[in-house]
């Protein structure tokens, strides 16, 4: 029982750090979302990395909604960036969903 208590306390602490990182990632994702022209390589890579990290740990920390939204958006962006430097309308909508979730968590 004490092991379970320890891990839940630790998960709360890590969730706090996740949210602190999320506010930095939010800036990157907003930048990508507001860019209607081509995204430069650094912004593409940073946006993908942010989404990849959110999708990798959010659900473990008790935030499955933003995790699955980030996963869906990452998959769509990978498809987009395989052939283009622009975001498709579908990806933009998926990214907007992630941004809304992130803002809700941070508010």
């Amino acid at each position, binding site marked *: 029982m004490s092991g379970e208590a320890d891990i839940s306390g*630790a998960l709360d602490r*890590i969730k706090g*750090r996740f949210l602190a990182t999320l506010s930095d990632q939010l800036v990157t994702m907003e930048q990508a979302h507001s860019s209607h022209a081509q995204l430069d390589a650094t912004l593409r890579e940073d946006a993908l990395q942010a989404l990849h990290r959110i*999708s990798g*740990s959010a659900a473990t920390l008790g935030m499955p909604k933003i995790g699955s939204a980030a996963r869906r958006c990452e998959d769509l962006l990978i498809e987009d960036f395989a052939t283009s430097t622009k975001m498709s309308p579908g990806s933009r909508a998926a990214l907007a969903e992630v941004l809304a979730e992130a803002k809700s968590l941070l508010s």
Partner: protein
Amino acid sequence: MNILAVDDDPIILELIDEVVRSMKDHQVHTVDSAAAAVEFLTENPDIPIDCFLLDIKMPGMDGIEFCRALRGCGAFPLTPIVMLTAMSDKSHIDAAFAAGANDYVFKPFEVYELQNRIKLAEQRASIMAAQMSDMDPDTDKARKPGLLEQIQIFDVDSVIDYFALENYVPLLSKRASFGAVAVGFHIRQVAQIHNRCDSMQFRGLIEDVAEAISDTLRGFTFLMAYAGNGTFLAVIEEDQVPLLPQLVDDVNIRIQRMGMPVPTPANLPVRICAGQMVRLLGYRSSNFLTALNTARESVEQTAAELERGFDDLWPLSARA
């Protein structure tokens, strides 16, 4: 166990640290890249790593390349390597197991799931440690493996250990759209051959037959493991299934050409047979082992029937 976790996401490393710490009896060391892991291993030769947890998507060398490098360097041939990754597509799963991974956990993970996989890795590490002590080439006293033992096979393309194959199959069966078949190959009269062989001969026979099957299957997408009792189990992509009779002939011709120096009953050449192909599609993850067991039972039954037929045609008293 000493566990080395490699991931470029500091949140994941913190999670792993807490999960492992909650299990007691284990120490975890965390680094953020393959290069940092190499540095850690070089600078800490006094910390024997018993298990690796590797992310795949990392800057620089990715986790699959690093896994392959760990297996190739000679220091960690049997150390459990668990991939901990968000990459859930089949090509990454296949590549990771082919590179030497023993297990594969998807991110995001449940805490209890990671704990269970670490426990499995711990059990595996202790079995592997015992096997390694049996294989010390300096002693020249390598214990003869039992007939049913799952001998480790190194450096044969797409051949993985049986524990890894058992972990691989359920990952695939979770994907409803994926289709694959399991098929068994069996060394005929293996019990009699085992009785006549010393340790090195029997280990060499298993490795050579694995190589013959692997070479023959080149061109197909597959993973294969030795299940003990002279039986190999392969999982092959369904959309390019080979014709079994032709495949068996090709493997047997390859074995003949290799000229295996093992004593066989009546000096007959070493030969293999194959069982029925078993489709994995439709098996639930809760009974994923059934498909592998069915493939194993099928080939061992086929082998038994072949030997019965052989005995009927050519009674023992007539061979000498």
